């Protein structure tokens, strides 16, 4: 066994790394995959290809977008990334070997890939950069096959512009590699200095030509168009990634050379054993350092708050209501986007009015988020507006989130929503336009084909269990959307269709959250219009009712509304404790901690 491990330790290490990367994406950060996929739309269309072939780095971007489309399956996404990271590590090692790296320094070849994994915690670093890096490393290997200087110069002259057009800024890895390699081989002499300067000047000239050919700013062309989602930012991580892939093979080669020299010198001093021990110690340190790096990646590279929202987004997209609630139960969420998602999940499970005060609440924005010029929150909010029947608002939020994608990409998820809103609104021509585009995709084609059957067919849509209901829910009498009058809009929705339970529950919850007990009591009788609505009100409603009653100076026991004795007793108890000591810890514990009264008195 020891022999097998000794013989195949490199392959085993790579395999472990590959499995680790798979687990990293599949178990720890699957929502990062979902997030990446929803912010692009790969279209099987020559025009789509032409657009990407038309700018430097576009080929890498095209390949990356092709791969990213498969992230709709999280398993496929994690496998793709695992394979990519293994390829990166293997290429790094092969280049390092060419630079004279000894097998003992195999662990060093993981450093750039691990650093990349760490850097990808910035969700705006796109796969295009990774694909381009693979291409550049492959070119480095090809370069080592060229032996004569004449052929090298010819290869650089022809190959570098092509490489820059294909891999954009990743070409710097190759430029750096050639310079380091030639200096290592020939030493610092006039020839190698001239070659280095010439190569750098040539690279700059290529960038300038590409810049003049493209409608982008210089720094963007130089750093890679669509390698980073925000086109006006050059990410430091991007630069660091290129640098680390350039220097790691050279470092591995340098350390080997240095060690060998030390070894020779140790041998000369008759201390061979001492020399070997020293080497073993270095390898162990390398391995430990890399293992620590991996832990560092997991712990620090990924901003917990940001990725929490991404997780909610993925769960929302997949309608995993129970998982949303489960997550919220484990960790309190406080941002309006998260809170509104939790409330929405509770509503979808029919538990909103029972359980909402078990979770953090702030104001009505936790029910119906206001529009912000921000991608994720707008995208997530559109789901709520859509399901409640505010189709035009859902459409607006969806459209705005589509236009908010920083690198001007489209999104299958959003386009799908736009098909739905237009279909429900009977705007078939627009729906058809989007369907035609979605039919040219891998992940949405089947759905688009199915939806095509609903085009221009009111009857079929009316009969659809979901779209038909949404059609009946949407208001037909026009009014203007108003952020400040959310309760009135919800009221109009419910009055338009008394089957819209969610609209009524949101209306009443909205009044509770805005602490408008008067309007809550005014609107509560509307529940009698809702078929099958329980005669015993949910907990939060009972708590609001009994509070409204005693607030009129009346006795608890005389309350005419359907409030349970249990709630009445707790109201009495809450009142007593509050009167005695407003700051009593008892009011923040047990039943009271999750009561409406706690929100009413303590949430500001």
């Amino acid at each position: 066994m020891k022999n097998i491990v000794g013989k195949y330790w490199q392959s085993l290490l790579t395999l472990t790394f590959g499995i680790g990367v798979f687990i990293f994406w599949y178990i720890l950060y699957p929502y990062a995959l979902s997030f990446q996929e929803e912010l692009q739309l790969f279209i099987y269309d020559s025009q789509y290809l032409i657009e990407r072939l038309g700018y430097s780095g576009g080929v890498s971007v095209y390949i990356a977008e092709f791969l990213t489309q498969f992230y709709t399956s999280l398993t496929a996404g994690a496998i793709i990334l695992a394979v990519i990271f293994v390829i990166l590590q293997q290429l790094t090692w092969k280049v390092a070997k060419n630079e004279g790296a000894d097998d003992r320094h195999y662990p060093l070849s993981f450093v750039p890939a691990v650093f990349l994994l760490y850097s990808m915690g910035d969700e705006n670093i796109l796969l295009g950069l990774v694909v381009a890096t693979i291409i550049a490393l492959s070119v480095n290997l090809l370069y080592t096959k060229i032996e004569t200087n004449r052929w090298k110069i010819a290869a650089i002259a022809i190959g570098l512009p092509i490489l820059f057009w294909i891999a954009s800024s990743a070409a710097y890895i190759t430029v750096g590699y050639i310079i380091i390699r030639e200096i290592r081989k020939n030493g610092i002499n006039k020839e190698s200095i001239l070659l280095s300067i010439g190569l750098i000047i040539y690279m700059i000239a290529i960038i300038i030509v590409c810049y003049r050919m493209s409608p982008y700013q210089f720094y963007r062309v130089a750093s890679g168009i669509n390698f980073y989602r925000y086109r006006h930012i050059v990410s430091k991580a991007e630069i660091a990634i290129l640098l680390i892939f350039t220097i790691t093979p050279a470092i591995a080669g340098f350390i080997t050379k240095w060690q060998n020299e030390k070894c020779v010198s140790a041998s000369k001093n008759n201390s061979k054993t001492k020399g070997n021990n020293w080497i073993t110690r270095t390898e162990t340190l390398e391995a430990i350092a890399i293992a620590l790096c991996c832990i560092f990646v997991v712990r620090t590279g990924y901003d917990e708050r940001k990725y929490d929202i991404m997780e909610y987004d993925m769960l929302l997209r997949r309608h995993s209501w129970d998982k949303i609630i489960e997550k919220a139960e484990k960790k309190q969420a406080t941002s309006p986007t998260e809170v509104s998602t939790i409330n929405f999940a509770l509503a979808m499970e029919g538990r909103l009015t029972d359980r909402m005060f078990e979770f953090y609440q702030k104001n009505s924005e936790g029910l119906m988020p206001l529009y912000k010029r921000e991608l994720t929150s707008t995208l997530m909010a559109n789901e709520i507006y859509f399901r409640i029947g505010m189709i035009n608002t859902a459409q607006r939020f969806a459209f705005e989130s589509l236009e908010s994608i920083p690198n001007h990409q489209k999104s299958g998820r959003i386009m799908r929503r736009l098909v739905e809103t237009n279909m429900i609104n009977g705007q078939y021509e627009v729906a058809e336009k989007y369907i035609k585009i979605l039919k040219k995709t891998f992940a949405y084609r089947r759905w688009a084909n199915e939806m095509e059957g609903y085009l221009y067919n009111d009857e079929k849509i009316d009969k659809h269990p979901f779209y038909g209901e949404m059609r009946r829910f949407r208001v037909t009498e026009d009014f203007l959307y108003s952020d400040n009058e959310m309760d009135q809009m919800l009221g109009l929705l419910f009055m338009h269709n008394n089957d819209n339970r969610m609209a009524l529950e949101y209306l009443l919850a909205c009044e509770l959250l805005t602490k408008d007990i008067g309007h809550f009591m005014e609107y509560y009788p509307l529940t009698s219009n809702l078929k099958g609505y329980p005669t015993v009100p949910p907990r939060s409603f009972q708590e609001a009712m009994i509070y409204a009653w005693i607030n009129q100076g009346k006795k608890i026991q005389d309350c005419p509304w359907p409030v349970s004795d249990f709630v009445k007793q707790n109201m009495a108890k809450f009142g007593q404790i509050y009167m005695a000591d407003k700051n009593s810890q008892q009011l923040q514990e047990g039943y009271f901690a999750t009561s409406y009264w706690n929100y009413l008195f303590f949430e500001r």
Partner: protein
Amino acid sequence: MTRKHSNIGIAMCAAALMMTMTMCSETPQNIKDVNAEAKIYPDYAGVTIPSNIAPLNFCIDNDSVTCLDVTIKGSKGGEIESNGQYTDFDVDEWHKLCEANKGDSLTVSVIAKKNDIWTKYKDFSIYISDDTMEAYGLTYRRIAPGYEVYGHMGIYQRNLSNFEEESIMDNNEVYGACFNCHTGNKTSNQDYLFHVRGDNAATIVNHNGKTDILNTKTDKTIGSLVYPYWHPDGRYVAFSSNTTRQSFHMTRDTRIEVFDNESDIMVYDTEKQEILFTPLTNNTDSTLETFPAFSADGKDIFFCAASSNYNPASMKDLWYDLCKISFDAEKRSFGSKVDTVIKMSTHGKSISHPRPSYDGRYLMFTVSDFGTFPIWHKEADLWMLDLQTGKYWPMDNANSDNTDSYHNWSIDSHWFVFTSRRDDGLYTRLYIAHVDKNGKSSKPFLLPQRNPKRYYDALLDSYNTPDFLIAKISQNQKALASKLLSPERTNIEAVNVE
């Protein structure tokens, strides 16, 4: 040397790919004759075109049609053919045919293959006007028809004799910028201006070979300059200044309502870099004034005006009338009174976008049910006012059931371009139509593309604010982008010239 902003890389790739792509090319056999018109896209049957327009390529609006065999014969002679999934006429042959048949018509014969059966449809005509369209092309903005946020957008120029489109300014060059209201002086490619909104806000005025980058906010006006129109002499530009708000409708047919809380009109003097205003149209508490346009002789400014006494609830009663005030270019002064030209409010309708023809005979405008932003009004239609007789009428041949708006005249005053949502109800497309001597419009035609169906299906932008262009604009985008990205702006003053 001025750099074009066509993406050369894209062009090269497209050319390479096109060469590798094969089109269907089949000879029709066993043709079945039907006495029905082919449903073609775009609908070019019966349209009137100028002889210098790009080929009117089309296809059958049915995915099961796999091949088209089209022959076009000129009444005065000449013939061209096309065979493929869509017509792709040779540009030179097309122009030769159109030139030879000027003032007459072309007869289009369509044979289509569907489910392996060739069908010959009824021929249709395309009329070629005697009136040449004196224009190199068009300028327009392309932007997704969104609400508040915009992604990729830009101002473009399009050669009308072929299919070339180039950007004049694109927000890839200035990230996050919004460009709007590109306006040339009588379709000039030398004197033109446009606004930049966003972090690098400015108004770019190209005049007499000089580019000014202006900050148009002053302490005497309500905000930046907005809707422009050049004085025919080229020294002045009439502007409105608007504090614009928007609301969102909750029902399906309408999406957005854009309205002004305040709006005024004024004139910018490009030589003295001053805004000239009169209290008659500036800081008028009770009136909203917008969409100024100089008359052809430059002696009057037409504009739209409405009472500012409204609120969002009563917006449906917000009706703009067409008014005018005189302007003396030599004295740099306004007239002493405002005249109402058309009191549309009495009809319960609202006027916007007055555009006088350059020969001074007509004035085209948009009529909608209410408000000041007809682009989102499905009922918006184009109307014509005869400035000699004072009569006005809807341009029925040009209008559709959906929004028709934002028109501009060619310099010869025989053609106009406008935006229309008639294709799908959302994405505005450009249509061009001919106006005869009686002010009647021909059936408009959709802006030609090499493969229109494919092009417009894939295009997720709307066309905005189109205008004709007398010659190609040479704009060094990268140099202009650098200037825009720097904070330097020329501040201008506002002067009361009552």
